[in-house]
């Protein structure tokens, strides 16, 4: 499909397989080239099934695009189309449809050149060629999801996304993957539902957004699947819990309450009994605000970082660090060490916990002891973390994709992002909670930081390191 | 005894009047339907008997009575409640002056088929009809709704204007007839004109009749003169009314039709007179007689009156379902620039004719 006319070459050349040379004169839109492409397309379409109405790729299918560009011809293929297997599981929740496959071998080459796992190959010859797994080995690589993206037709589909909606309903917005230190650039495909139809989920899939300096065009399975977890069990109300009874507050009242408790201790000179636990999913701006508020202004007793446990890196994109901004925290002068729960349990009277979005009941074990010993417990969390029952006030926060900010990835390169999704209900970005607390506490020098632009400006002035390049 | 007879007459007249009003709503529905190739209300049934929808007025009445008597919080409660009753009262009272038939002789007494036979019966009716304006104006005013008030003002302006035209159209008649007493007027119309034509007002005052008829239509404030109400678009004076009070306004409308029809009959169509029927029976101008007993004569006369009234109502309903509404300036033009000058012309013409003929 990529044949072009090159001056000096008698035949049409394949653009993808020709090295560029100085002084080369390439023409892409000539009649000869177009005619050749049209003919190739007709061959491709001759055996291609008319699955478009049920095909997940419809709407973002290269074959459809080419047909729009070059074809719009009626099929001249009168013979019966060959029946092939339509539902071949090839592992990792991938399904292969051999009728739709046009044997471009992109999937085979991806597994050979990029992941070097060689699970797929083309078998048989000629008309009978088909893609299959080698010796019934399944595609087990962490990057199998990319096969769906790179397949130009709907031959490889993902069980997770399969049939859940149609491509043209999805609205994509750019964001960054928060789930490891790499910070891959991603597209979040969301579908808010129709006027009177509430969807059970809003994020249908996460795809890599090409970023040559970070992730290239790829991303790992953890990032793809992670969002379904992140966007579930959200908290969208401000709660005050007293004697086991929950009441719903407004932001003004919730922040006022929290500020009052902080002020009570700091005014008595007991700032040392305040413990603040941050996490490194927070953006540079938020960490910057937290440092000024908690360390520089309130001089809190302990300031620690609660992050997910490090995992095993896969040697390609996924890092062992499983949060997005530990490097940024270090650059801001924090020591992103886990909190000493025993010391907090003994000394702290107030614990302000910024729960990270992956905190769940399974991970709360060591926290719980300290959590239950401290007198005043303020929980800032985007999701149900299992700590709600013991909190005095719950402030709902936003997911990383729901707020603007910037992160510094494991290699020290910073990237800024805008909010890609709407926060549910009352949930508010942490930087707004922090500025709100500063406002309530009337902290000198933190007035006027009411927009993310101002915060970013201030942060960059003091830490030029975070400049996004 | 006199009081008893008067009471019986009052009750009888009111029963006649209200029954006719009630069934006029049915007539209106059915007549409009027949005019427009429809069937009209026919669903109200008692024990499965539909009887051409004759029970519809009963159903309407029941519905109106049981509807919530809603008075808006911002309205003047007393005046708001008073207005429909005023409207209703002044119309209901007019019918007492209308003669239904010749006097009856029962057990040696002469009983006039008329409640009040005042010497100025015509003036009385006109006066009572003018009082109806208060109902409209109060309805609009007491609602404390700007649009209702405007509707009431429109109504008052229209009624006052057309009262002038109505009065002028009647002056010629008064000049011709010997008295303002309605029984005398009817009796006078029993005579013959040129020896064969009944001496009815319509033959004596054809122009006057036309003017009276148009002005009377405007006085009933129904289409094409329904600017006070304007149910389909401009907001009328009883927007803030519902249930029974609204029903009273609506009934007043229909009662006005009957009153106008009865007045028209009395003044222009010989009232209860049947052509060539004297107290002893028919005397045809071409010779020949048909003597009838007294009872039959009175029955014929009452029937004649009723037929004429019902025809008048029919005609008014026909007009209501034929013509589009006048614009407000057209309404005023018609009243002041056409009907009033023509009324003057009619008076002059009558005066000249009376002078010449006498």
């Amino acid at each position, binding site marked *: 499909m990529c044949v072009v006319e090159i001056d000096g070459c008698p035949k049409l050349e394949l653009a993808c397989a020709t090295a560029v040379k100085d002084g080369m004169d390439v023409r892409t839109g000539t009649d000869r080239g177009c005619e050749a492409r049209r003919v190739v397309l007709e061959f491709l379409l001759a055996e291609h099934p008319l699955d478009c109405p049920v095909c997940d790729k419809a709407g973002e299918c290269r074959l459809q695009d080419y047909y729009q560009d070059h074809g719009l011809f009626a099929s001249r293929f009168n013979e019966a189309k060959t029946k092939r297997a339509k539902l071949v599981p090839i592992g990792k929740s991938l399904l292969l449809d051999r009728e739709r496959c046009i044997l471009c071998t992109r999937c085979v080459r991806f597994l050979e050149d990029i992941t070097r796992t060689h699970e797929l190959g083309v078998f048989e010859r000629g008309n009978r060629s088909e893609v299959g797994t080698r010796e019934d080995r399944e595609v087990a690589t962490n990057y199998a999801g990319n096969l769906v993206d790179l397949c130009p037709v709907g031959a490889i589909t993902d069980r997770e996304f399969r049939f*859940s*909606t149609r491509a043209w309903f999805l609205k994509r917005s750019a964001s960054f993957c928060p789930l490891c230190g790499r910070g891959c650039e991603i597209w979040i495909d969301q579908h808010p539902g129709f006027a009177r139809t509430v969807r059970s989920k809003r994020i249908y899939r996460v795809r890599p957004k090409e970023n040559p300096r970070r992730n290239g065009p790829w991303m790992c399975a953890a990032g793809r699947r992670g969002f379904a977890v992140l966007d579930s069990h959200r908290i969208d109300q401000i709660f005050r819990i007293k004697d086991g009874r929950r009441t719903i507050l407004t932001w003004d009242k919730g922040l006022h309450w929290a500020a009052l408790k902080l002020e009570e201790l700091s005014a008595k000179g007991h700032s040392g009994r305040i413990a603040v636990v941050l996490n490194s999913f927070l953006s540079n701006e938020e960490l910057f605000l937290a440092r000024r508020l908690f360390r520089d202004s309130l001089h809190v007793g302990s300031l620690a970082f609660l992050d997910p446990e490090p995992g095993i890196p896969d040697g390609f994109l996924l890092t062992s660090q499983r949060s997005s901004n530990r490097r940024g925290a270090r650059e801001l002068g924090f020591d992103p060490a886990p909190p000493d729960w025993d010391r907090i349990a003994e000394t702290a009277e107030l614990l302000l916990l910024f729960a990270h979005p992956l905190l769940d009941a399974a991970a709360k074990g060591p926290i719980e002891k300290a959590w239950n010993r401290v007198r005043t417990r303020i929980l800032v969390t985007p999701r149900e973390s299992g700590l709600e029952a013991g909190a005095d006030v719950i402030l709902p926060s936003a997911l990383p994709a729901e707020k603007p900010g910037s992160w510094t990835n494991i290699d020290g390169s910073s990237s800024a992002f805008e909010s890609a999704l709407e926060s549910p209900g009352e949930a508010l970005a942490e930087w707004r909670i922090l500025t709100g607390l500063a406002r309530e506490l009337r902290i000198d020098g933190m007035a006027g930081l009411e927009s993310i632009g101002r915060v970013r400006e201030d942060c960059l002035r003091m830490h030029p390191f975070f400049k996004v390049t | 005894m006199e009081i008893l007879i008067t009471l019986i007459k009052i009750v009888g007249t009111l029963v006649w009047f209200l029954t006719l009003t009630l069934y006029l709503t049915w007539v209106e529905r059915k007549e409009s339907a027949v005019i427009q190739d429809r069937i009209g209300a026919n669903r109200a049934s008692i024990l499965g008997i539909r009887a051409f929808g004759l029970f519809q007025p009963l159903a309407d009445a029941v519905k109106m009575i049981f509807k919530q008597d809603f008075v808006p919080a911002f309205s003047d409660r007393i005046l708001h409640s008073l207005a429909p009753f005023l409207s209703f009262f002044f119309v209901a009272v007019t019918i007492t002056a209308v003669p239904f038939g010749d006097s009856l002789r029962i057990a040696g007494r002469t009983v006039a088929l008329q409640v009040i036979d005042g010497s100025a019966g015509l003036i009385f009716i006109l006066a009572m009809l003018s009082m109806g304006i208060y109902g409209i104006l109060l309805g609009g005013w007491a609602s404390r709704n700007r649009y209702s008030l405007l509707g009431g003002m429109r109504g008052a302006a229209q009624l006052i204007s057309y009262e002038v035209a109505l009065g002028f159209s009647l002056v010629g008649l008064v000049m011709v007839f010997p008295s303002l007493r309605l029984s005398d007027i009817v009796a006078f119309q029993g005579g013959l004109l040129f020896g064969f034509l009944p001496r009815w007002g319509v033959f004596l005052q054809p122009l006057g009749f036309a003017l009276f008829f148009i002005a009377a239509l405007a006085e009933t404030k129904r289409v094409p003169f329904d600017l006070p109400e304007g149910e389909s678009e401009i907001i009328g004076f009883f927007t803030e009314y519902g249930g029974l009070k609204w029903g009273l306004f609506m009934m007043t409308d229909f009662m006005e039709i009957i009153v106008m029809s009865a007045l028209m009959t009395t003044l222009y169509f010989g009232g209860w007179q049947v052509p060539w029927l004297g107290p002893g029976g028919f005397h045809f101008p071409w010779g020949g007689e048909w003597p009838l007993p007294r009872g039959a004569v009175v029955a014929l006369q009452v029937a004649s009156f009723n037929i004429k009234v019902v025809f008048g109502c029919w005609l008014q309903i*026909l007009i209501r379902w*034929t*013509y589009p509404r006048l614009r407000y300036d057209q309404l005023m033009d018609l009243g002041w620039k056409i009907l009033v000058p023509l009324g003057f012309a009619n008076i002059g013409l009558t005066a000249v004719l009376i002078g010449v003929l006498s």
Partner: protein
Amino acid sequence: MTVKDGARFAIEVLRGGLITARHFAVNMARHSLRAIGIRTRRTGAVTIQYPEARKQVPSRHRSLHRLLTRPDGRPRCVACMLCLTVCPSECISVEADEDPDPEIQKTPIRFEIDLSRCCFCGFCVEACPEDAIRMDTGILEWGRLGRDDLRIEIWPGPGPGRKI
């Protein structure tokens, strides 16, 4: 307005009155004749007494939707969601799932239409590549007391409280 105009106006007014009077007379005569048992060529009214008498629904009239089925009773619909896409009032909602037959591939497990939004344009019928949805049931009386009762499932069929 001149006198001539006035006269013409009056004549037209009278003519208008005569037209309605004629309608009244003719229709009344027909009604009366029929009431006493004499058949007239035409009736006095064009009214159809609706719940008892009904007009024939024209064959191309768009009434309540239905899903057509395959010979084995399963829906012809493949949940391609083209009806959803083309629907101008966003009243259709479809949930799809894997069909046991790999040739059919996709099948609806829930096909819901919100009649309170539907404008009966028939675009869904035109968009359907499988001729699975049609609006030819002739059902016109689908009024309900609540909005939520107007969300009807036409597949897998009438659920509780959603009878059609």
